[in-house]
């Protein structure tokens, strides 16, 4: 199996490149009023009106997702540290100076914390969406029908994901063990197209959620998903032998998130 540079842009890089830049004064809370589907197609950052800055972010994030250097160029330009510095330089040259009281906080557009959050969240959302889309193929869903939600990165302050999982599962109307489960050793697993994925990422249920059915599900979460193949999925009671789950469209996935948001708003 030769691996040659014949592979084109990844799904994640294409998703990032296709997003429309959307400068906005809206806060994170206010942005949630927009439909999840619109947000998934847009590149924005809370209270960031400068579309040149957003363009720069989008381009740099594209570089992280698809780091192809030109002739004689080094790839260091795609490392997060250099991306962060490029954003800082842009802001400084554009005359941006943070309020002294806000310097270094998330509201300071030039702080490491803010830039890291924007870059990491957007890189991971594009990777997560790419993963989700590429899994919507019948043959793949037959062979790897489920995902496990697991901790990919340690955090000092961890959120109670097991409890969230129970709560999200409860919202689906399916009792535990039917399409979603928690194993005896506390592993969180569900069929790839089970509505639990929309609920675990729903801001109507969890304030920090990103309103997507793919990881990272919430801001700075450290959680990700991994394949569960057919045999362990059957052993966990998620799927019966011979049973098929059908590929899903993005519109179907967002319908669940939107319906929950409308229910909570009402």
């Amino acid at each position, binding site marked *: 199996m030769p691996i040659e540079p*014949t592979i084109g842009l990844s799904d994640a890089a294409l998703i990032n490149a296709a997003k429309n830049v959307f400068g906005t004064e809206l806060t994170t809370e206010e942005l949630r009023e927009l439909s999840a589907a619109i947000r998934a197609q847009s590149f924005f950052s809370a209270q960031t009106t400068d579309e040149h800055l957003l363009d720069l972010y989008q381009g740099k994030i594209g570089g992280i997702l698809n780091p192809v250097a030109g002739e004689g160029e080094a790839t260091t330009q795609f490392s997060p540290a250099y991306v962060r510095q490029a954003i800082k330089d842009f802001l400084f040259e554009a005359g941006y100076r943070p309020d002294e009281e806000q310097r270094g906080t998330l509201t300071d557009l030039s702080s490491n914390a803010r830039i890291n959050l924007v870059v990491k969240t957007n890189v991971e959302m594009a990777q997560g969406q790419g993963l989700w889309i590429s899994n919507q193929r019948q043959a793949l869903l037959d062979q790897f029908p489920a995902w496990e939600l697991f901790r990919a990165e340690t955090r000092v302050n961890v959120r109670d994901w097991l409890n969230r999982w129970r709560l999200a599962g409860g919202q689906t109307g399916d009792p535990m063990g039917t399409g979603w489960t928690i194993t005896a050793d506390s592993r969180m697993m569900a069929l790839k197209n089970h509505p639990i994925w929309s609920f675990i990422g729903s801001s109507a249920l969890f304030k920090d959620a990103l309103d997507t059915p793919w990881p990272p599900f919430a801001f700075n979460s450290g959680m990700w998903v991994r394949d569960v193949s057919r045999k362990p999925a059957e052993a966990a009671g998620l799927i019966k032998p011979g049973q098929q789950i059908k590929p899903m469209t993005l519109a179907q996935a967002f319908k669940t998130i939107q319906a929950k948001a409308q229910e909570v708003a009402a």
Partner: protein
Amino acid sequence: MISLRIKTDALDELAAKAQQLGRETDVAMFGARAAGNLVRNHLISLDAERPNALGGTRTHFYAAAAKSVHEPVPVGKGAAFIITQIGLAQRWLGGVIRAGQGESSYSGKATQYLAIPARAEAYGLPPKNFDDLQFVPLKGGRAMLVQALQTKLKFGRKNKAGVRKVSGTTVGGLVMFWLVKEVDQKPDPTVMPEQEQIAEAARAEMDDYLSHTLMSN
């Protein structure tokens, strides 16, 4: 781009079986997927086991690498996946890195030195992130970036008379970065699973898929 070709007799046998069934691409894709999943899990384990040596804020390099393992795509009669995390191949295979290849974040010109973090606070940050570094040359063409000596003022609360207490301490003098012209990084084969493990993961998945397909036909 680095190519890693996995080829064993067992895989060839399965590929031949798949060809008879007209499922060559599917079987290769599932083999590549299993290999990719093994690599992802391996990198996630490394992320848990290997925080940065200096103890600075974690960048979760290996977890980011796991997330950058792409989904497999068909290539010819086989399947392939790529990993796009910058620096992973360097850690895995090692090799010499020389200054002058990239653009300095400080000057915008070709780099004259490679900056190696000397303290936890410098980890994951380019020197330009600091506005108080002084260049100090050393023997042998090396150098260091040292935090300039400075007085840090601390403002207390205003007292009843409206006067604020101010105290000052001298800080600085710490080496933040070592500057070198080149580094020769040793390879670390443990960054990736062993080739035998990758081949076995692919074989097991291909075999499972073929058995499943034969049974349902």
